Each structure stands twice: as C-alpha cells, then as structure tokens.
C-alpha cells in the first residue's frame, strides 16, 4: 500500500476546493486504508513528525549539536517539511481549539513528545536542562507549547520567505532553554527546601 497516495489525493482535494473534506467519499471513492478524514489527517501529521526526525538524524552535524541546537534544527527542518502544505494547514488550523483538544493531532504529539523526552534527558545529562521536583514532569508540555507557538507564528508570517519565523524560532527556543536551564528559580527552590527541612527538624529555634 502506498501511504503517500491517499495524502496526495487529500491535498489535491483541499487545494482545488479550498476547503477540508467532510468524508473520505467526498475526496475519492477509492482511498485505500482510510474510513474517516480525521484518520487520514492524523496520519499526515504523524508523517510530518517522522520525516522531520528522519531528516534531522540524517544530517551528520545533528549528532554534534547541543540539545538547544537540536531543538533549533528540529524546528527549521519541520518548517521546511510543512512549507509546501501551508495552505492546507491554514485551513486545518483555523480553529486552534481543535489542535489543543482534537484527536487528529494526538499521534503527531506523541511522536514529537518522544523526540522531546530524549532531548530533555540529553539536556539534563549535559547540564543544559535542570531537573526539578514535580516541575520536570511538565517539561514536555512546554515543548508542545513551543511547537504550537512556532506553528502559529509561521501561519501568520507574511514576511518574505517567512524570515521572521526563523527569528521567532531562535527566540522561542532560547526562551525555552533559558527557562529550563539552571537559574534563580533553582536557588529559590533550594532555599525553600532548606527552610522547610529546618522547620521539620525543629532546629534551630
């Protein structure tokens, strides 16, 4: 089964009708493997994530990058891949609530999160990312927020060759990693922990 084929049919439909299909039948009577449109869209998104990671890891430089640089490279690669589908994604993402709640993007999110978790682990090993009690668990959510921000910025970017998105990516990634890097918050937590312990131990009063 050629997986690409249903995608091409789907994309052609959206581009020529300038709307999203309501059912598979609306696209074509012979799309193999799919019963519903969300299924197909979900797979399309999953492919974006898979192709992005694949392309990244094929670049010999990627392995040498720091976690921060890997995130940058991932976003730039991702944007290169979704670039040709911009018009379609504009229609899909008109309603942002759908991406936050919708099942359509779950597999994409899962793929992306898989990459992110490895990245976070690596970042922690390299000292780029600080392990923090409780908070560490929500790190992947911050990365999810980051890719949503990149996507949303890119969809609205009217600059030539979407150059402003390149700038935004740098800034978003730096903000993200600066937040996760060891910083004042950790010293504050450390102090709080110390004070609590002092209190429990009942010394010195």
């Amino acid at each position, binding site marked *: 089964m050629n997986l690409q084929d249903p995608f091409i049919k789907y994309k052609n439909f959206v581009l020529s009708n300038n709307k999203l299909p309501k059912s598979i039948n609306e696209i074509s009577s012979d799309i193999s493997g799919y019963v519903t449109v969300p299924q197909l869209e979900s797979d399309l998104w999953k492919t974006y994530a898979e192709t992005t990671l694949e392309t990244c890891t094929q*670049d010999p*430089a990627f392995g040498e*990058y720091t976690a*921060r*640089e890997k995130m*940058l*490279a991932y976003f*730039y690669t991702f944007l*290169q891949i979704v670039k040709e589908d911009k018009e379609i994604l504009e229609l899909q993402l008109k309603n942002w609530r759908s991406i936050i709640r919708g099942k359509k993007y779950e597999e994409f999110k899962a793929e992306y999160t898989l990459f992110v978790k490895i990245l976070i682990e690596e970042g922690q090993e390299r000292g780029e990312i600080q392990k923090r009690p409780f908070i560490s668990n929500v790190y992947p959510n911050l990365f999810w927020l980051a890719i949503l921000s990149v996507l949303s910025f890119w969809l609205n970017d009217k*600059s*030539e*060759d979407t*150059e*402003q998105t*390149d*700038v935004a*990516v*740098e*800034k978003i990634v*730096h*903000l993200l990693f*600066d937040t996760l890097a060891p910083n004042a918050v950790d010293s504050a937590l450390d102090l709080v922990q110390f004070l609590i312990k002092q209190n429990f131990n009942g010394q010195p009063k």
Partner: protein
Amino acid sequence: MDSQSKIPTSKVARATRFFKAGVKVGGNYAAHYAKKAFGAADEAELDRKNAEEIFNVLSQLKGTALKIAQMLSMDTGILPKAYAEKFAAAQNNAMRLSGPLVMNTFRKYTGKAPHELFDEFNPEARAAASIGQVHEAYKEGRRLAVKIQYPGVADSIYSDINMVKPFVLRYLKVSPDAASQYIEEIVERLVEETDYEQELGNGLKAIELAKDHPDIVIPKYYPELSNKRILTMDWLEGITLNEFIQTEQDQEKRNHIAQLLVDFFQDQVHRNKQFHADLHPGNFLITRDLKLGVLDFGCTKKLPVDFYNDYFSLIKDEVLNDREKMREILHRLDLLREHDTEEEERLFWEITVKSIEIISRPLRSETFDFGDEQYNKDLQEYGDEMSNNPQLKNSNALRGSKHGLFLHRAFIGLFGILYNLRANVRMSTEFAHSIEV
C-alpha cells in the same frame, strides 16, 4: 548563543533602551554639517564613560540600530579612542547565527547544505558584522569568505527607523517633515545593503574600475555561490587598516596606503559617480605586499549627474567668484531657499562658503598633510562654532540635497582615516575641469 537570547526583543524594550541612554543620534545636515564632517564637537566631548554607556545600549540592539551606531563612530580617530575601539569590538559582539540557522539559511536559499556546496565549511563564524556573519570555506583549493545575513534584517529596518526617529528628531529639534527626505535616503541605503545580490553587482563594478590600479585588490566574487542572503568571495589575507594604523611606523608606507585609499575613492566618485559609502577602517585590509584590499560594497551611493555637477562645481573659482552663479547653484542644492529672509541667506551663504573652504583645502594644494595640527584645529573650531550657533537649531536649518548625505559620510570616513594615518597625499581637483558651469 547567550548574547543572542539577551537581545531585547520587543520594540518597547528596545525603545526603552534608547530612552535610558538618551542617545544622541544625529545627522543634521546643515547645522551639523561641519561638526559631523570633522567629528569634533559632540562625540569628542563625550568622555569615555559616556561613550561606553551609549555603546552598551546600542550593542544590545542589532541591525539598524547598530548600523546607526557605526555611522556615529565613523569619525574614528578624531573621536575619542575609547569610542572607536568600542565600536570595533561591536563587530565581534553582534548577534550570532546558531549552527542550525546557518544550515537553514543555506537550505532555504540554495536548496543545499553548506557541505554540499563547498569542500569544507567552518560552521563557526570567523567574524560578525552588523547585519551578518562571515564563515570560512574551501572549494577547489581556494579559501573563501562566505557572508551570511541574519534573517529578518530587511524587515526590521522600517520598525527600527521608526523607533530611532523620534529620538533623532528631538535631538535635532526638527519636525518630521523637515527630516523626512534624509530619513528616506538612509532607509533606502540600508535596504539596499540587505540585498547581497546588489552588493555583488557593486563589487563586480568596483573590480572593473580598479583594473587601472594594480595596488588595489578587490576579492573575486562567486555569483553561483551567492544569493540575496549569502555572498561568497575570495578570502583576502592581510591585516586590518586599524592594525596597520596602530603598528606601521614607516610614514612612507602609511602615505602609500593613504594614497591608494584616496585614488580609490576619487576614482569611484568622479569616474564612476557611484561610491563605497562605508569608508571605515574595518572595510579595508592591507596585504603583505602593501596593497589595499577593499571589502564590503553593501553601502554604495549613486550620484545623479545634476547633483554631481552642482556640488563639485562649488570648488571652481569661476563659481566662487560669481555671486549670481553661486546663488543659483546653492538654490539647486537646497542650501538656500526661496523664502529665506535676508538674514537667513547671509547665514547659510557664510556657512556654505566656510564649509567649502575647509573641506576643499586638502584638494587645493599639490599635496596635503593630514597630520597638520593647524588644519585639525581649524576643523574643530569650525565644528564648535557651528554647534553653538543658536540660529542653526531649528527646522529651517535642516537643508541641503539628500544626495549629499552619504557623500559627506564618505568624506568624513576618508578624512578620518587619513588623519589617523597622519598621511601626506595628493588629492587633486583635476576632475573639476570636466564640470561645465
């Protein structure tokens, strides 16, 4: 990477920084004409601390703001040393593109990765400039310099200018209307500078022009490895003009380099009528065999023929001695205006005549010694006189053709370097013979 994350991002944040330092960004054309031209006054009065503060603010910005900072620092040498050195350092402190962004820029504009285009490509930048950074690469045994532009620079020019504008206007005490044509001119040049394809064209033209000067070297450009955001040229070996100024003791060698610089500039202005308008020491290299290497043709200015003829005819005696003729020309150059009162006409006439005398003095003698302290003293005095003249502090004093803006900037740069070299050079006014009046 850290330096990048600390660049204040929002317009508000950047504006606040300007406000904090009360930066005096300026280029009042008539009133500050002499003052700027000879770098005396304001900048020279800034003490080291003050210069540092302004520098610190500007260096946290980038793009246009840094460019303007560099424009202010044009007057190296006549300026306090602290200031000049600080800005030389700015070249190294500017924003840095991350490795992935370099890769992305290549993929975006060439469809290929750097290692596919070159035999070898160093992902670490060797030098940074205000709107890009330079990487070293090798292809077929040639050492190449690959300049890559920061993304979004072209887009941000307009917002940067709009941000700087109120401060400039307030500092100069002029209305937006009076300043608009000069600001347009600056924007035009800055936008051009972001187009590396145009820079490549300028460079090729300069190579053609420099053919007659075996001692002027302009690197070979590679159009097939260049586009509007990436510019590839031969790597030029040599020491920077700044280093040369500081280390070379032999005055004859200093004069030789100064003469090459003068020939290069005069040739561009008078033969080409389009010139390298960014004459700061960072754009020149001295090769081992004492040739002058010229880099960076991003900022050039083309002079309209009418403006050129009017402007340079002002050094001809038959114009200077013919009041009517001169009045006509000064009107065309917007130095005198139709509704000027008698008093205004007298004022601007005097200023113009004095400016001409001072600027053209080096051109009038067979050879001229820029180390001459009397000349530098005259310049400073003239500058002080201008900046302290209350009559020159209103909107009506902002005048002169916009085409002169970058010509003066270039003269400032040239004279500044010649002063730093304490050079003795021939400048010649031969070009003026061909100007009909």
